């Protein structure tokens, strides 16, 4: 899991560089950057309260705990219980809340802007996430990640297609949650793209490092769930799911960021709602297929 978390960003960077015709930075440059950040001092705004200093630890801590619940194909997760998929979703919500409040704490209009948008997008994408998980629960009859992915073996062709679509939903959810193109652009925090990056404007040093690391973890969570859904359909082994999670996600995001422009901000809501609608459609299709099989 940690390996997945660490390498996705590398793949994204490399893909983008190659597509742009550059040689690109070192594969593990982002880890080196984070390492540098962790050793640096920090500048805190005088407007902020203690909450601002605690928020990055909550942000990273909840992402770490969520990561522990995610299995990689047939590798068991560290923790698991009945209903943990809900806990994971709400842990991610906790991390989001922490960073939104921290952004509001600086009293900057830019960060307020980012916080407001993050809160709205997070709220709208939640149903898509839950429906994706409900689809998985529908197929596999359980509500913990470990059980879902370990019991789903004998599935036929139709369901495979639905599973691929579920994987796609999770992938888009990741794009939205991680603030990637076309919803947000991680490379800038100018007014055009004020969502995710802008919320951390006043962070520096260790805090910034923690936020970066938490971002990788969150990416890894969604990428692995998506890869698991694909792996269930094709080959349920960790040696298949791991590279899939890293390469498929990394390369796709790299391609998207190189080839696509960002959405106009007002289009983002439509974009997210489309994904929600699609998740609902996938769930419905899956339900109908299951009914057909049983009858």
């Amino acid at each position: 899991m940690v390996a997945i978390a660490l390498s996705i960003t590398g793949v994204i960077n490399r893909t983008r560089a190659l597509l742009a015709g550059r040689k690109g930075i070192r594969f593990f440059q982002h880890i080196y950057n984070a390492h540098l950040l962790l050793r640096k001092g920090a500048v805190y705004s005088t407007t902020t309260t203690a909450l601002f200093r605690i928020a990055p630890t909550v942000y990273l801590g909840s992402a770490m705990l969520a990561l522990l619940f995610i299995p990689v194909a047939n590798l068991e997760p560290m923790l698991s219980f009945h209903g943990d998929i809900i806990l994971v979703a709400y842990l991610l919500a906790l991390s989001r809340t922490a960073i939104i409040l921290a952004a509001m704490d600086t009293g900057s209009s830019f960060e307020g802007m980012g916080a407001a948008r993050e809160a709205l997008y997070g709220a709208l994408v939640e149903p898509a996430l839950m429906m994706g998980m409900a689809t998985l629960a529908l197929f596999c009859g359980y509500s913990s990640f470990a059980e879902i992915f370990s019991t789903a073996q004998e599935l036929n062709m139709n369901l495979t297609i639905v599973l691929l679509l579920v994987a796609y939903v999770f992938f888009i959810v990741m794009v939205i949650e991680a603030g990637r193109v076309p919803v947000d652009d991680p490379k800038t925090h100018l007014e055009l793209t004020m969502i995710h990056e802008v919320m951390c404007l006043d962070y520096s040093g260790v805090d910034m490092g923690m936020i970066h690391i938490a971002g990788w973890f969150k990416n890894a969570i969604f990428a692995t769930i998506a890869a698991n859904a694909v792996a269930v359909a094709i080959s349920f082994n960790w040696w298949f799911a791991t590279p899939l999670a890293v390469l498929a996600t990394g390369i796709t995001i790299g391609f998207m960021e190189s080839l696509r422009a960002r959405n106009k901000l007002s289009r983002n809501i439509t974009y997210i709602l489309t994904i929600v609608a699609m998740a609902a459609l996938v769930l419905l299709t899956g339900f109908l297929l299951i009914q057909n099989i049983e009858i």
Partner: protein
Amino acid sequence: MFLYTLLAAAVAVVVALFVTPLRQKVWVATGVIATAAIAAIALAVMAFSNGAITLAEFSTPLLGGESISVDKLSSLFLVIIAVASVATVLYSKGYVEGYLERFSPAHISLHYTALVMLVVSMMMVVMSSGGFSFLFAWELMTIASFILILFEAERQDVRRAALNYLVMMHIGFMFLVIGFVLLYNVTGSANFAAIEHYFKVQAPLPLFVILFIGFGMKAGLFPMHIWLPEAHPAAPSHVSAIMSGVMIKTGVYGIMRLMQAIDHNADLLYTIGLIVLLSGIVTGLWGVIFAAMQNDIKRLLAYSSIENVGVILIGLGIAAVGHAAGSNLIGMCGLCGALLHTVNHSLFKTMLFFSAGNIYSKLHTTAMNQMGGLAKHMPITAILMLFATVAICALPPLNGFVSELLIYIGMFNGVSDGHEVLYSVAGIIALSLIGGIVVLAFTKLYGVVFLGSPRSTYVAESTEVDNLRIGAMAIPAVLILFIGLLPQYAIRPITMVAEAISGSANTIALNHFAPTLEALSASCWVLIAIILLLYVLKHRLQSTATITEGPTWGCGFTALNTRMQYTGESFSEGLESIGKPLMKDTVDGRAVDKGEIFPTPHNYRIVHKDKVDSLLGQWWVKMLHHFNAWVMRLRTGRVNNYITFALAFFIVVLVLTIVGIL
């Protein structure tokens, strides 16, 4: 005998409240309420360990034999009422102190009398077996809360809101009276226990709908919720706390009693489950969308109460549908989730309203956009409020998550076992959307009020409130922590109540919950440990590095001022662009136009109101106008016409008598 004792006690309390000196009144009220609370908790404990207790049995002239008794469902609500009312009366001391000079002693006495009356009548409501005593207690509760809302009666908006409340409550009361009279006519008893019999011999749906509307009016179901956002900002904060945290739950209590009665008829349970689930979804979504758009702290909290009632009903609805479909597990999950959420909401909502009261008593406003940076001036309130915010957003280490988790598990079980997949999915979508928007609403509330820099000069003059108020807020805080971190113990009494409602002893569900909740509790502790560890790590990493402080980075802009911060209105602007069709705005002044390159000073104030509010209000007024105009045509002013009317009346009476209707 029981009733006479009660009456004597009531007179004694009122006299005591009116004769004691001004500053001691609060202690008399505290004494009475604490006694009642201790008695209630004792009764609840006895009912939990030994089964139902009957305190008094008597016959009423109108609706037959009734009793005052305590069973498990009553005891759960008794505990909720007891905890919240003790916290409320303790809190009220500091809050009312600011008014002691302004108001006459009689006014203060009346306020405390009404508070005691509200607490006692709520206890009576949940202990009454139904019929006359229930309706009596229900009406007493309405009147007491009406007097409480009227505390600052010199304000016009307060009088208006209180009157609005009184009218709405009596419409609901009318439905309840109709329901109970119907019940009495058919079965010869107006007790809740008779409903089961009624449903067997008569068409059940009409009675259910009538009673559901009656209870729903109190609970704030869509579209009967419109009294909440008006009444709560008008009422003093401790009153809002007890009304929102506990009183609206008596409506939920009534609905639970109804569900208890229909447990043996699967078809009916299914239909009713659908009605409850649907109204829960609509109420929850409506409440949360409006909560996120409000710019007044107490209006926001009022809408969030509506949303929480919606969540409770989603749980109840899923429970009924699951139960009807034959899955006890879904039934227990939904029911336990709904019951626990009732408890949870009473805890965090009282805390939130207390925080709002702290702010109001220092700043004399509840308009969010005048605040900002309060955390530096009221640090303890800020911490407690943050606590309640995390709890109400249903985020992991605290109690809100536990109850929503149970409801979710019920629905996910529905999906995975193939029981009522579509309804479960509808519930999942609604609940996750509600969860997401709640985060938006409460980060807005907390961020705009407590964080950032002050938007007005009042903030700089505010200080922390007295310790008693902080102590009153700590009571629910402790319980929130307990339920959040040790849910496996908190769930036990809840499952007992759920068993009593669903009528089946269900150990499977208990066995099912216990490992989940233990694992959840462990996860919460792990979460706290990880966060602490990270904080220590960060501290160590920073110990060698240089830490400096400076102003917030303004992206190169040097003339930043506090008015450029994000306001509450701008925070929810994105949601408003979606929710526009639902609301009706009242706007004072004019916003800055897009074409204005060099803006001049503007005054701008916007209140987002419900479309249903004006729809219902205007509709009534229009109907009344039409009716009046029609009646006015009869008033011709000529004596001969009036004599004709009298003659016509007699003829009608004659005809009716002949036909045999009269």
